[in-house]
C-alpha cells in the first residue's frame, strides 16, 4: 500500500473530511475510519491530525458539532456540514482535479 506524503495529506485533508461528512453527521472516530476505509488505507487520520482540523473547520463555520446520544446510550460529539461547508466541496474538488490534471501532464501520474 502506498501512503501519501504528509504535505499532500494536509492539503487534501479538508476535502476528505468534507466529502465524508457530505453523507451525513459522524463523530470523530467514525470520520477517521470512514476516510481510511474509503482511501484504501492511503489516508489515515490520527487523533492528533483529525481534531485540530475539525475544530478549525468548525471555527470557520464549515462544520457544526452537537452532542448526540448514540443507540448504545453514549453521548458523542457529532459533526455535520453546514450549508457554508457544503458549498466548499465543489470548488475544492475542482481545485484538486485541476491540480492532478496538471501533475499528470507534467509527470504522467494517472492510472493506466
Amino acid at each position, binding site marked *: 500500500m502506498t501512503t501519501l506524503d504528509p504535505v499532500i495529506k494536509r492539503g487534501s485533508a479538508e476535502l476528505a473530511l468534507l466529502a465524508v461528512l457530505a453523507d451525513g453527521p459522524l*463523530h*470523530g*472516530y467514525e470520520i*477517521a*475510519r470512514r476516510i481510511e476505509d474509503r482511501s484504501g488505507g492511503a489516508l489515515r487520520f*490520527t*487523533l*492528533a491530525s*483529525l*481534531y*485540530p*482540523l475539525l*475544530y*478549525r473547520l468548525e*471555527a*470557520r463555520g464549515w462544520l457544526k458539532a452537537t*452532542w448526540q446520544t448514540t443507540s448504545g446510550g*453514549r453521548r*458523542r*460529539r457529532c459533526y455535520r456540514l453546514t450549508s457554508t461547508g457544503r458549498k466548499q466541496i465543489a470548488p475544492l474538488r475542482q481545485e484538486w482535479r485541476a491540480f492532478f490534471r496538471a501533475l499528470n501532464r507534467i509527470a504522467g501520474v494517472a492510472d493506466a
Partner: protein
Amino acid sequence: MPDWRQFVSAHLGPLGLPPKCEQEISVELADHLQDHYAAALRDGLAAEQAAAIVLDEVPDWAALNREIFDAKRGEASMKQVTRSLWLPGVAMLFLYAFLLRVVIWTGSQPSVFFLGRQTPLTGYMGLALVFYLPWLILLPIVGALGAYWSKRSGGGVLQRLLVGMFPATLLLALFLCMMLLAFVADPHVPLALKFAALGTYIIGWVLIPGAALFIGVLPFLRNHQRPRSAGVVSQ
C-alpha cells in the same frame, strides 16, 4: 479497560479555553481513544498491543495542545473579539452619543464649572467644564450594559472593562491625536492654551464620564466561579 478520560486529562494539560470547552474536548478525545482501543481488541490484539497502538495516535501531547488551542482560538478569535469587544463597544459609543442628544433635546441646561487661576506668565488660566448632569446620571447604565453584553458574548474582564469604557477611551485617544496634531500644525498657539483645551476636553469628556461609566462596569468585572464538574469519568 484503561481510563482514557483520565489519561487524556493528564496528558493534554490545560488549554487556556473556557472550562466547559476544555472538558468537552477532553471527553471527545478520550472517546476517540476508547473507540480505537476497543476496535484494536476486536481485531484480536492483546490489551498491551492495543494500548500501544492507541498511544501512537498522539506522538506529542504538547504539540496537540497548541494545535487545538490555535484551532479553537486562532480563527475564532477574530469573530470572538468582534462579538465581545467591537460590536458592543461601537453600540455603546452610539448609545453614549444618543443619550447626550436626548438630554439636550429635552432642554436640559448644562452645568458649567470654571477652574482657573492667575499665573505670572499667561495671566488668567482657566478651564470651563460643561456637564449635562442627567446624562452623567445615565452613563452608569451605558457602562453596565456594555460590560454585560461583552460578558454574555464571552468577553474576559479586560474586554468587559474596555467595552463599558469604550466611549471615554475612544474620546481620550481622539483628544490625544488632536493635541498631537495641534502641536505639529499650529506651533504659534501658546502651549498653555493647548494644554488648557486638552485639560478641558479630557476632564469634561473623558475622566468624569469615564468615572460614571466605570460605576456601571464594576459589578460585571468579577468572574463568578461555578463549581467545575468532574473532568475524569470512570469507565
